[in-house]
Structure formats: C-alpha cells, structure tokens
C-alpha cells in the first residue's frame, strides 16, 4: 500500500506553524525513514499519517484514496511507539491479541496470528508473562509482535529503538529490517538517529525547521546533500564546513578561511561560499614553519581510526579521520589538505553544483 502526502501543513494555532508543505510519495513495500533533530515535527507528521492528529491543509492518500477524514482504524495501519505503549495488566499473548480482538477477528485466526507473531520475534516462551517481567528489548519485541500480528500492510514506527541500549539497538535494527522485508510492509520509521536512517532506509526524508530538507536514498543524501544542514546531519564525525571567499585576483580561486586555497576549473559562483569536506576526505601531515596551516588540539584513538581535532591558523576548528593509529602530539603544527569530494554551499547554506573537479592546495 502506497502513501502519498500532498502539500500537507500543520498549524497548532494561527501563529505556531509546525510543518509546512510536506509532499512525498512512499511506495508499497518501502522502508521509509523520516529523520530530523528533536522538535522538527517528525512525530507530528507520523501521527498525521496515522490519523491521530488532524492535518491543517493538504491531503494524505493511502493507495490513491484520500484519507484526510478517515479515523485511524479505517486507515488499516499499525503503530509502534517509542515507549512501547503495552497494556501492563495484560500478558504478552493478550497484548498481541488485543488489536485483533478489537477488530473482532475469529478466535482461531487470532490464535494462529498471535502464535506466528510471537514466534517471529522469539517470544513464544514468554507469552504468559506480564510486561513488567520483561526486559526493555523484550518489551519492544512485544510491541513489534503487535504490528506483525495485524494484517495491516502499513506500519508506522515512532523512534522504536531510542529507549534501548546501544548493543540491543543494533540487534533490533536488524530484526526490524528483516521483518519489514519478510512481511513486505510499507514501513514509515521516525528517528533522530542518522545511523538508523542510513542503515535501514530505502528512502530518507530529512526534516528540519518545519520543512522537508531533502528526500533521497541514503547514498544520495550522504554524497549529494542539498544543503549544509543535511550535510552536517549525516556522517560521524560531522562534516567540516568552512567559510570561503572568492579570491580578488583570480576568480577561479577560492580561499578557504585563508588557510586552504582551491582552484576551480570555472569561475567561483559567489563571493562568499562555504566549503564542506568530510573528515575522511582530509589529509594531515606534520609540517614545519610556513608550511603548517593548523595546530593539533587533540586526538581520539578509536582502534581502526583516529580522529584528529585541529585548529586552522584562521581559528576554525576542524576534525580529520586518519585510518589506523596516528601519532600527533597536542600543539604540534600540521598541514591539512583535501583534494576530493568537496561540497560547495552558498552563504545561506544552499548547495551549489560545481561540475568540474576542483582542487585544493595549501
């Protein structure tokens, strides 16, 4: 079942606009992730699709039927909540069966579905337990089983993993992904975690400041962010964004915070620019005297890589990922260079496409 949003808007009152002009098409069987910082309206958007929150303007379509005025039940979907929303007075089995009973399915059918759902999330042995006797991960599996047991083909998930610890989160991430593929669910998944978005999504919608920032596949979003917000939101450690100006002598040349120079094959598109460089696209080497353009502030050794934090002579902080172990001492002068995958943004943060290869040298 596909979901289409056309110019959906949400105002809480005439002054507070929460979401503006959201348009998107989610295909049948797609794993669609809505990602953004807290307070960007992503949970509100999910509740609007579910029908729990009315929309102010625009239309929501499920399988080409406008469902703006349909109650949640009639939209035939299930929802998994961040804090699970289990019924504490019911056993695991009854929690999973609850929705099916509410929809008045035949008893045999309910039993078969619940059994199958519990088996799928590995909870068969715990069917008789109450939620309070389960661990966090098991509770979240019960919530998943509820969604699995339903015959609804649309599933909405609101930050389902954010209450779990890091290791469990990775495990559950894989389980959710496997379930979605196995059942062919159209899954809309809300998260603030860019790693979850990158690892699971077929398509990602980045929301910020009431607007859709970008919709695309994980690799599109990472490699071709449409603005500096998207570029900064994806990738750990964060991308380096440095102010840059067009050189007055040579309009093909761009000075990056007076420490790096970039020569372009074409004329620099604007006087003031911002350059984005991923930390692993930068290189550092020890340097002496005039060659040095930065000073090491700190290093973090992570095993397979080292993050070098440095301050450019102009005062901008940067971080560089160096493979393996790198031996830099604090306050050591270094030379930072970058020569590929540069992203150019204008002063407002909008991406500027520069077609030709650009070069950087100190």
């Amino acid at each position: 079942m596909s979901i289409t949003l056309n110019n959906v808007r949400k105002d809480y009152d005439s002054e507070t606009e929460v979401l503006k002009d959201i348009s998107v098409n989610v295909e049948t069987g797609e794993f669609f992730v809505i990602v953004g910082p807290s307070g960007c309206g992503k949970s509100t958007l999910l509740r609007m699709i579910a029908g729990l929150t009315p929309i102010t303007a625009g239309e929501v379509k499920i399988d080409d039927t406008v469902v703006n005025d349909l109650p949640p039940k009639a939209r035939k979907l299930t929802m998994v909540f961040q804090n699970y929303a289990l019924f504490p007075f019911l056993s695991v089995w009854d929690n999973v069966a609850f929705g099916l009973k509410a929809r008045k399915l035949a008893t045999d059918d309910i039993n078969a579905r619940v059994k199958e759902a519990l088996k799928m999330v590995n909870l068969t042995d715990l069917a008789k337990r109450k939620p309070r006797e389960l661990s966090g991960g098991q509770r979240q599996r019960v919530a998943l089983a509820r969604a699995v047991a339903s015959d609804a083909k649309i599933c909405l998930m609101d930050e389902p993993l954010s209450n779990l610890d890091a290791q469990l989160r990775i495990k559950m991430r894989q389980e959710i992904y496997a379930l979605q593929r196995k059942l062919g669910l159209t899954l809309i998944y809300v998260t603030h975690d860019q790693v979850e978005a990158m690892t699971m999504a077929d398509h990602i919608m980045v929301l910020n400041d009431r607007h859709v920032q970008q919709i695309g596949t994980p690799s599109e979003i990472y490699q071709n962010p449409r603005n500096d917000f998207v570029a900064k939101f994806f990738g750990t450690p964060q991308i380096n964004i440095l102010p840059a100006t067009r050189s007055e002598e040579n309009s093909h040349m761009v000075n990056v915070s007076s420490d790096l120079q970039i020569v372009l094959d074409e004329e620099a598109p604007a006087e003031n620019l911002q350059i984005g460089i991923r930390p692993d696209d930068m290189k550092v080497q020890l340097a002496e005297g005039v060659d040095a353009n930065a000073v090491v502030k700190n290093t973090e050794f992570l095993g397979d890589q080292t993050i070098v934090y440095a301050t450019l002579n102009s005062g901008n902080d940067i971080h560089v990922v160096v493979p393996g172990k790198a031996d830099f001492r604090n306050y050591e002068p270094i030379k930072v260079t970058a020569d590929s995958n540069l992203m150019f943004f204008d002063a407002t943060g909008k991406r500027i496409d520069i077609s030709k290869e650009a070069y950087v040298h100190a």
Partner: protein
Amino acid sequence: MNVVAKPKLARNIGSYLLLTVLALVVLAPFFIGLWTSFLPTMQIAKGNFLSTDLSFQNYIDAFTQTPILHYLGNSLVISTVTMFAQLLFCSMSAYAFVFLDFKYKRSLFVLVLATMMLPFEAEIIPNFSTVKAMGLLNSYSVMIIPFLTSAFGIFMLRQSFKQMPAELKEAADIEGLGHLQFYWKIVMPYNRIPLITLGAYSFLGAWNQYLWPMLTTFSNSFRPVQNGLRQLQSEETFNDWGMIQATAAIVVIPTLIVLFVGQHYFKSGANEGAVK
C-alpha cells in the same frame, strides 16, 4: 566498629522505647475494648477489669438478643451499593474530564472541586429538606442516593487518569476502540490501584456514617450498624456493657477486612512495563 555502633544502638533503643509507649497509648482503648468484650457485665460493673472470667457469651448474646445481624445487613447493603456507585460514576466523570473535550470543561471541574470545600455538616439541612420532600426518609435510598458520587473520588481518579501515557490512548485509537471500550478495557484495568483505594475509602466512609442515618432513619429495619450500636445503649434499661463491647468488636471486623484486603493491592510497580 563497636565504638561507632554503640551510640547508634543506644539511640535506637531510645527511639523504640518512645515508639512502644506511644503505640501503647494509641492502641490501649482498642485492647481495653476487646478485653472487656470477653468479660461478663457484672465484672465490668464492679470495675474488676483484670478478671479472668473470659467467655464468648457476650458475642452469643449480641447475635441472639439484639438486631445486630440486621444492622450489619443494612450497613452491608448501603456500603456496597455506595461503593460500586461511586466507582462507576466517579470514574465516568473523571474519564470525561480527562479524555473528552467539551465546552466549559474547566469551569465544570472547578465547580465539582468547590463542593469539596463545603463540609457535609453544612449541607445537612438543605439535603434533609430535599430527601424529605422526595419522601425518602427511613429507607435505604436516603442513605445511598446523596452519596452516589463524590467530588473527592472524581478529583482523585482524574489525577490518576491524567497520568496515563498518551500512547495508550493512541494505541487504542489505532485499533479503533471507542470511548466506552477504551474506558472499560484500558482505563479501568490500568487504574485498578486508585480504583481499589477509592472503593475501600467509600466503603468505609459509608460503613462509618453516623450523623446522616441518625437524622433520616427511625426504625431498626433500615438503621445501619453504627446507629444500631448507639441504639443498644439506650434501648435497654440496664446497659449490658459486655455485650455492647462485643457488638462494637463485631462492627469493626469489616473495616479490618477491607483494610487487609486493600493493603494486598497497594503494591507499587503494578503498572510498570506499560511504557519505559
């Protein structure tokens, strides 16, 4: 170790001594009452409280010679009906105040709260003329109808309903539960602890009523137990204190049962696991 532990022990001994004395002061009337209920009235009249002539005769007399069973029955009917009515009506009003949207919701709730500020004694005269005009005097209804709901109960349940996680309502909406189903299948079981508390509170409140039944009942067929107890004392020309004490002890038993049964449920953490 010992040097540190000693003053702590001494301090504890002091505390426990004080607590024991206070407990004795508080509990003494109960023990004296219970003790005398086993003594023959002759011994009590003589002031011979330390007599060892103990028996259950007073209890047997209470059941065979007085209408105490009838009083107990009356009180049981009144208290049980009051309790269930309050549970039903208070939870329904609290539900409306929490989960429904309607005009003047806030003002109405303030009005409900305002009735809590008024002591019952202040309402007795208007209430009396109302029930008299309705022709309800000397009946079960007169002791039940004015207490079908309570502002305190509405307030208390509203507070606990408000603390339910919003996701439970959303989950119910997704499954298409109507208000009545959500109320009955989720809100009521989720809030069973506050409901049991309110139930115990209203049962005991009705059981221990004295002033109102004294004004509105005139015959043994409707008189509840507290007033019956008073009746025993004046009806007899000679006060059979042993038997009166035995009756009083019988009257307290349901209170104790309610408290013991209730206590079993007042465990914390019963709703753990609904949400993280």
